[in-house]
């Protein structure tokens, strides 16, 4: 498993860890309530390094990605970022990418398990383009400030105002360390990603912990960020998103341009939309029962399979189980009840809203 340069400090802080697609990620530092409360009402510090990071240099970088993915990248200006779906010619999802136009190059974030696939796909479709792709994953770390006080912590460290729209990106320095700051709001909470080189990461982590004390900052692990992600209905590659799923099924409509013209898989995506042939939708579920159902469990109505559970988590103390699922269109209405059965256990799930992964602004 990959450990970032923050690992030993995180261990010292009492973090427990788990394997997330080959990355050893912190799960919990203190307790659920503290971490969850920090992210929603104060500020939480999260290690968000488990993923792929590429830079794309060259005058054809933007154009090539534009031809290979669903969103309109040609409208991007320096300082802006966007989410776009890398699709194959059947309109299926190879990955959901975050693309940031940083000054004069592109910074691309991939899902951890898709990194190699994305690099190879871009290379396959590079012919005479002026383009150089560099994998900076191993050399960098990303930490995130999540919550309303995040910008306060950030500004007290950059020494100036940080005014970013969702999707925005700037390069700044904190105590002499170059930092690429992105505004992501990826858990439906105001959040800022800080990309730094791996060697400087431990020092920045300490700075954030120290400065954060004034803002009641707490570190946050994967357990809480998963619950926040499910609560917000944000789809993730490997669970809601995969090559067996098309973007319209999985709540990625804001990442698709219907006016940009050709890209790989465009016809399929367009046809699905025009003829209203999307067969499944991503939904949020409130689940009751003992224990915890598993990802992949079937959702049943009258004994018939109508969907699959793609994410699930328990909120301690409240004993609520929440989940995300892909369910046949006929059963995607709020209030619809489904049965989940596995390993001799039984749960009742209720669709609590049609998922709309739609963030304001640039669609990131």
């Amino acid at each position, binding site marked *: 498993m990959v450990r970032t340069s923050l690992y030993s400090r995180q261990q010292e802080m009492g973090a427990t860890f788990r394997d997330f697609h080959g990355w050893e990620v912190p799960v919990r530092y203190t307790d659920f309530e503290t971490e969850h409360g920090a992210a929603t009402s104060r500020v939480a510090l999260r290690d968000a390094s488990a993923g792929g990071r590429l830079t794309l240099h060259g005058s054809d970088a933007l154009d*090539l990605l*534009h*031809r*290979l993915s669903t969103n309109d990248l040609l409208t991007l200006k320096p300082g802006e970022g966007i989410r776009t779906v890398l699709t*194959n*010619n059947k309109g299926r999802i190879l990955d959901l990418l975050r693309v940031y136009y940083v000054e004069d190059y592109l910074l691309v974030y991939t899902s951890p398990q898709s990194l190699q696939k994305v690099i190879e796909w871009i290379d*396959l*479709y*590079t*012919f*005479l383009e002026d383009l150089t792709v560099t994998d900076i994953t191993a050399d960098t770390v990303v930490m995130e400030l999540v919550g309303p006080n995040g910008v306060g912590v950030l500004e007290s460290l950059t020494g100036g105002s940080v005014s970013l729209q969702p999707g925005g990106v700037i390069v700044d320095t904190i105590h002499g360390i170059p930092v690429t700051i992105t505004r992501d709001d990826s858990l439906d909470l105001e959040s800022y990603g800080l990309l730094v080189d791996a060697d400087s990461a431990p020092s920045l982590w300490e700075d954030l912990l120290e400065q954060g004390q004034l803002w009641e900052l707490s570190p946050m692990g994967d357990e809480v960020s998963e619950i926040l992600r499910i609560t917000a209905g944000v789809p993730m590659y490997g669970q809601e998103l995969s090559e067996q799923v098309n973007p319209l099924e999985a709540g990625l409509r804001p990442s698709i341009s219907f006016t940009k013209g*050709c*890209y*790989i*898989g*465009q*016809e*399929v995506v367009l046809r699905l939309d025009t003829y209203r042939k999307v067969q499944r939708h991503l939904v949020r579920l409130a689940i009751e029962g003992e224990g915890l159902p598993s990802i992949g469990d079937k959702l049943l109505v009258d004994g018939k399979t109508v969907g699959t559970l793609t994410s699930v988590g328990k909120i301690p103390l409240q004993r609520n189980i929440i989940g995300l699922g892909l369910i046949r269109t006929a059963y995607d209405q709020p209030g619809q009840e489904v049965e989940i059965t596995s390993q001799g256990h039984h749960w009742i799930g209720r669709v609590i809203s049609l998922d709309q992964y739609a963030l304001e602004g640039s669609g990131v």
Partner: protein
Amino acid sequence: MPLTINISPKAADKVTTFAEKEGMYNFGLRVGVKGGGCSGLTYQLSLEEESRPDDKIIEEHGLKMFVDRKSYIFLAGTILEYSDGLNGRGFEFHNPNAKTTCGCGTSFSV
């Protein structure tokens, strides 16, 4: 039939006519492939005065074609034709490698 890229006499003629209209007399037809297009790849045709170092140069019917190495892999066996008349579609690539094509006919996959 050896695996190469062929051009029909009519297509070669059309290219030359087009080039002359553009005032080009010493030129090659760059035949290539580009990523994108709904099926994955699209064909590219352009007129260039000189070939590039890594090009394959194919001569047929008095016309020189420049093909970059990578495009050549996707195009070997292809015949470039020209269909005119009332319902003509202009230049057409007949590519035995192409597995799927899109509705508009301009994009293909292998």
